[in-house]
């Protein structure tokens, strides 16, 4: 074959491929319309492959479907396991065994717990008591998810979760504290105050938030020292928790402006910025009184931010005031 023939052949092949693929583009569009129409008529999506068959077991008898999905959960193929979970979640609206299947899937740890947890969370409050055995699961990943799922069940959480605040895994302790926020019990408060001194920053951060969420202003003296924590995460959690209390926290935070620790001073100034006293004193000179102390503790940027808010007549919480009143 000479060069010219070879080139002609390449042209023919490439041109043919282009035309074929171009036809494929148009056919795919027509095909997708046909599939959509068929799906609308038949009331269900056509079944194409193993994953789809597992997801849409309509037509099969209940017991067969259940067996198929149980087998699917144990499959070596991730697609089949995922399809089984999605199918179980769909069927859980009608069948209790589907919820059992999801709980089992979570306990087995074969598939990403996030995926199963998202479905079980959507089904609340029905999974309820089925979740409590998972709190003693040997895997901390499963215990972590189970504890978080119980946040939707304050009574169950109040009964079972305090024990998990002593779990060896920090993320389980942190999740337990997060869940106890909804429980509002004395036991939950005791656990959270105890864990404000936990060695793990994640746990301390959640402890600050939980304590304030349960008991509000009375916990401020315990949480406020955490504004000087070694960890930024804990400092931020403490600040946010204290800001969440509102103006009542000022009494606890203001004395911290006089602290020897600049980190604590800064934390206190940020809290006071966010709850309002800085904006309240917008007419005063920044070197005087309380505003002067806050500005000295909070630094240049806090001062400049306050001055800009005053200039624009808007508070940190979105409150507005007449501009004339705002001028320094």
């Amino acid at each position, binding site marked *: 074959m000479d*060069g*010219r023939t070879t*080139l*002609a052949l*390449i*042209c023919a092949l*490439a*041109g043919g*491929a*282009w035309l074929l*693929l*171009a036809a*494929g*583009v*148009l056919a*795919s*569009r027509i095909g*997708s319309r046909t599939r959509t129409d068929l799906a609308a008529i038949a009331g269900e999506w056509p079944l*194409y*492959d193993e*994953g*789809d068959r*597992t*997801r849409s077991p309509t037509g099969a008898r209940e017991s067969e479907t259940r067996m198929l999905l149980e087998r699917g959960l144990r499959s070596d193929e*991730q*697609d089949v396991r*995922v*399809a089984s979970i*999605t199918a179980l*979640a769909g069927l859980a609206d009608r069948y209790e065994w589907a919820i059992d299947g999801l709980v089992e899937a979570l306990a087995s740890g074969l598939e*990403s717990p*996030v*995926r199963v*947890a*998202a*479905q079980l*969370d*959507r089904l609340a409050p029905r999974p309820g008591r089925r979740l409590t055995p998972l709190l003693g699961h040997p895997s901390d990943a499963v215990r972590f*998810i189970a504890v*978080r799922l119980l946040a939707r069940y304050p009574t169950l959480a109040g009964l079972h979760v305090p024990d998990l605040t002593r779990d060896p895994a920090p993320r389980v302790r942190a999740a337990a504290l997060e869940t106890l926020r909804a429980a509002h019990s004395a036991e939950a408060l005791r656990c959270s105050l105890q864990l404000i001194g936990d060695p793990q920053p994640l746990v301390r951060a959640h402890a600050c938030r939980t304590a304030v969420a349960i008991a509000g202003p009375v916990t401020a003296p315990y949480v406020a020292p955490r504004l000087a924590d070694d960890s*930024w995460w804990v*400092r*931020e959690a403490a600040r946010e928790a204290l800001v969440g209390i509102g103006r009542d926290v000022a009494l606890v935070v203001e004395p911290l402006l006089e602290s020897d620790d600049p980190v604590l001073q*800064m934390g206190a*100034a*940020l809290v006071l*910025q966010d709850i309002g006293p800085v904006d309240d004193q917008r007419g005063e000179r920044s070197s005087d009184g309380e505003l002067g102390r806050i500005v000295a503790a*909070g630094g240049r*940027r*806090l001062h*400049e*931010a306050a001055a*800009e*808010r005053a200039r*624009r007549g*808007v*508070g*940190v*919480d*979105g409150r507005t005031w007449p501009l004339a009143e705002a001028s320094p």
Partner: protein
Amino acid sequence: MTAEALLQGLVVGCAAYLVLLYATYLALMLVGFVESRRTRRELRIDDLAVLGGSRFSPSVSVVLAAYNEAVALPHAVRSLLELDYAEFEVIVVNDGSTDDTLERLVEALELVSVEATSRGVVATERIAAYYRSFRHPRLLVIDKANGGKADALNAGLNHSRFRYVCGVDADMVFARDALSRAMRAITRDPARIVGLTSFVEIAEDPSRALVGGVEYDIPESKPLIAYQTLDYLRAFYNNRIAWSRFDFMLCAIGAFQVWRRDLLDELGGWSRDYTCEDIELTFRVHRTLLDAKRPYRVVCLPDRVGVTEGPDTVRKLVAQRERWQRVILETWWAYRHMSFNRRYGAVGLVGMPFYLLSEIVAPVFELTAIATLFAGAATGLVDWWHFVFVTAAITLVNSAFNAGALLMSDLNAPVYRLGGMLRLLMLMPLELLVYRPIMAWARVKGTWRFLRGDRAWHKFERNVRVEAA
């Protein structure tokens, strides 16, 4: 050696290069088809809505770096704030803009100046101010001294609270389900996937091309934008999807790059030593994790996550692509020890040699091929029939690759208007004559600037857009 023998040698060399390149492209495209089909199947069996809306899905800090983006930025930020995802925050970093970027943002989102604190993981230029919005509690705006895009992203990283950090560009408009799609893939293998990128669409004005984050109005009719659409389709569907499958995904694009925050912290964030930050970070992730023999994956999805702005003039397009060429060269050169190195697995043995073949030596071969063909035709060594056949063959092979990418895109999500698709199909055969010379020029220019040590961004003006409401 006679001139004739030299010319003959060059013809054979260029032909061999083309055959090798196209054979590689063909193999990658076939893998792309298989992978796209797999992703489509995953999407059919995954419950995207439940995953996206669940408090159990991984939390994400979206970081957007902006420099002189007064017109584009409000569109991008609004689309981010409207994402359908349970737990995320948006951190916008104004990198010392000299226009009214910050003022417009303050006005559009009713921002108030506050003081805040940083995690302080990476050193950055000085922070001038922080802004929050009482209407949008997820939003934090940081105003800092100019330090370049990498520095701005690092400032965002210093304030990121969530498990994953998603770096995005200011000229994008995002699909509402962008994060749901990305994080769906991550939840399939959270222990190993440390980085992810996804397909972005291109338009002259993204805010008109993706209305309300849901309705696409694409592709664009302007030929220059249409050719860029084909370029993006090929880059993602014909290449990156396959790179991802074989674990040599070498570029998580700056427009949409999701990384695990702890890994970014460990690596010290994005590097300021390169013209662009995205390719270098991807290379650094590969090197670090392969050196440490840690199991990991960086993946690319075929899912559309938004629309980015395509330059609407040749001058702007050349400026953009010469920068891309420069950064590829800078990065490849800095990490050249990984190339052909068994220690770096598929990255060293396949990915980097592929970059060398398709990006780095491409300008040399493109120029040589054009010069040789014309010289050969003029001297009679290559007869005019050969000349025509070679040109036709290259045109048709390129068209076939383009059509393959378009088909994959349409099978994945049929969002293009039918008329627009027909126009794209008809534009394909002219690509070699109309679009490729512009790309070749940009690559030559980029290579020249790299050799001269140019590291500047050379920012060009954004397209004219409708103002954000």
